[in-house]
């Protein structure tokens, strides 16, 4: 399908999808009200309807001009590794503590690095953890659990 090779067309379709999803959520969960007496759903409703309209225009324009500029390759591995690294840090920060969470996140991140060198990455992990301890715990007095087993 040529349409999936145009960045504009795909963006437009995603706008339509997100707008429609919002619209459904507004209509099923919120009170829209009237212009003179706006409810909690009024503003999101207007925004989502406009978004669907914009999405239709973007898609239509892309299909009419037939410009398939080609979407650049999607690099799944770095994307998954970076988001996983952030998730891991969030999951471990309070439950296991800074000393576990940060090295774990950094070692996960190292999976995506070309020509990684594990001993060096371990040193980096230790150095970064120490630096964060000095800046945030000693310096800024933010209460972060250090180590919980």
């Amino acid at each position, binding site marked *: 399908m040529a349409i999936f090779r145009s960045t504009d067309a795909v963006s437009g379709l995603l706008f339509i999808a997100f707008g429609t999803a919002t619209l459904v959520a507004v209509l099923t969960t919120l009170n829209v009200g009237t212009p003179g007496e706006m409810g909690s759903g009024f503003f999101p409703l207007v925004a989502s309807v406009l978004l669907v309209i914009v999405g239709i225009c973007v898609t239509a324009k892309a299909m009419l001009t037939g410009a398939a500029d080609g979407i650049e390759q999607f690099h799944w591995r770095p*994307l998954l590794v970076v988001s996983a690294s952030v998730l891991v840090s969030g999951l471990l920060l309070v439950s296991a503590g800074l000393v576990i969470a940060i090295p774990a*996140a950094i070692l996960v991140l190292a999976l995506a690095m070309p020509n990684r060198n594990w001993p060096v990455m371990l040193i980096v992990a230790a150095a970064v953890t120490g630096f964060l301890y000095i800046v945030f715990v000693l310096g800024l007095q933010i209460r972060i659990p250090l180590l919980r087993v």
Partner: protein
Amino acid sequence: MDILANIASGLGDAAQPGNLLYCLIGVVLGTAIGVLPGLGPVATIAMLLPITYSLDPTAALIMLAGIYYGAQYGGSTTAILVNLPGEASSVVTAIDGHAMAKQGRGGTALAIAALASVFAGTIATGVVAVFSPILSSVALSFLSPDYFALVVLGLVASVVLANASLLKAFGMVLIGLILGSVGIDPNSGDFRFTFGSVGLTNGLEFVAIAMGLFAFAEIVQNIADPDSKSVSLNAISSRWPTRDDFRRAVPAAARGTFLGSIFGVLPGGGAAISSFAAYAMERKVTRHPEEFGHGAVEGVAGPEAANNAAAQTSFIPMLTLGIPSNGVMALMMGAMMIHNIVPGPQVMAGNADLVWALIASMWIGNVILVILNLPMVGLWVRLVSVPYRYLAPAILALCVVGLYGIGNDIFPIFTAAAFTVIGYAMARLKCEPAPLLLGFILGPMLEENLRRSLLISDGDVTVFFTRPISATLLAVAGALLLSVMLPTLRRKRLQIIEEGDG
């Protein structure tokens, strides 16, 4: 001459060795933390606020102001060197500033940013002192329809700024507006789009969205194509701007100062809109539009001057009306109230000494900033030459701990993880993330003023066109849109005609 006498007494207070020292400490700490990727002025001030509790009110405010300017400049430094804008106002600086850094002119970009900032700071301080009564009376006459129109104008300016298609940028604004409405509706108390999640009840964290869209998505891209990263390392030799740089930067900085001074004083304006508007303006007036996005000096000088001018003048509504115009001012207001000073018209009368010392320290803070940062440009530049496989873990770890530090809560970290995926997908689809951020910040204000306006007019939308101020602002927004659409239409038509001929 009341004003001169006031400034003189303010300078006398601010230049006392003790206050000068706190100003210096504030600027150093603010820059040091603001330079860390993803930590903008709000986060930096919030973190350092406790340090100032024990000081006397004047010293505390002077130090906080120093932290603010330091963080602002530090954010621009990171935006230029590593393309990681810590907050919305340095998003546009990253566009051309980082392009300059990639060409080995990072030092020049930093110097331009610093000089434009102090230039704007000097003039804006004068503006605050001289026009404070006039400007506050202008802001006094603003009603809800006018605020609504102002926000619309700010959003239109951001759409005009986006490099790609106007329609896509408009779509991003709308997505930002929707995301900004997540959480408890302050008006009705309804839970909007929380889907039963406790973490979503207070809304999405702005810093988390910015970090995901910019910092983390950027890490993904840099890991995916390592070649593009090595460019920035060659020859950051010339740090002082050339005569030609100056010739182009000075008018841009002057225009930026002008815009920033105006936008800063309007509630809800502030540094972010100012830098967006200044960038849009530079792109319009330049004779080299093709250079924008590829290292145009004006693209650094204009927005940097604008956000610094706005940073100063945004004190006006807070000090004189008690209305904080943005997150930073809300924090400053909180700090004043800890010292039993309630900002508002009575502060100008009752605590005039403090107000004038604060105004004078704005200027002193700016001067310290340049004295401190120009020699240290080399130090910041050296940050770039750290290999990315060491820098990336450090950036990521700093960001997640910073996110936790915002409210001792891990939920923003998960928000940032989600926006990493969204940000990367957006980059692949050539959608600009900046309009989304602006929509997100301004959404609640847009909604509140729309609701109030329509409540007063009983649902009649003509209220926006019958009030002179809102009608003018909307007309400017409309003109801005038309000015960009027309040439595109003409070019498109020409293109189609040419294709038809061939």
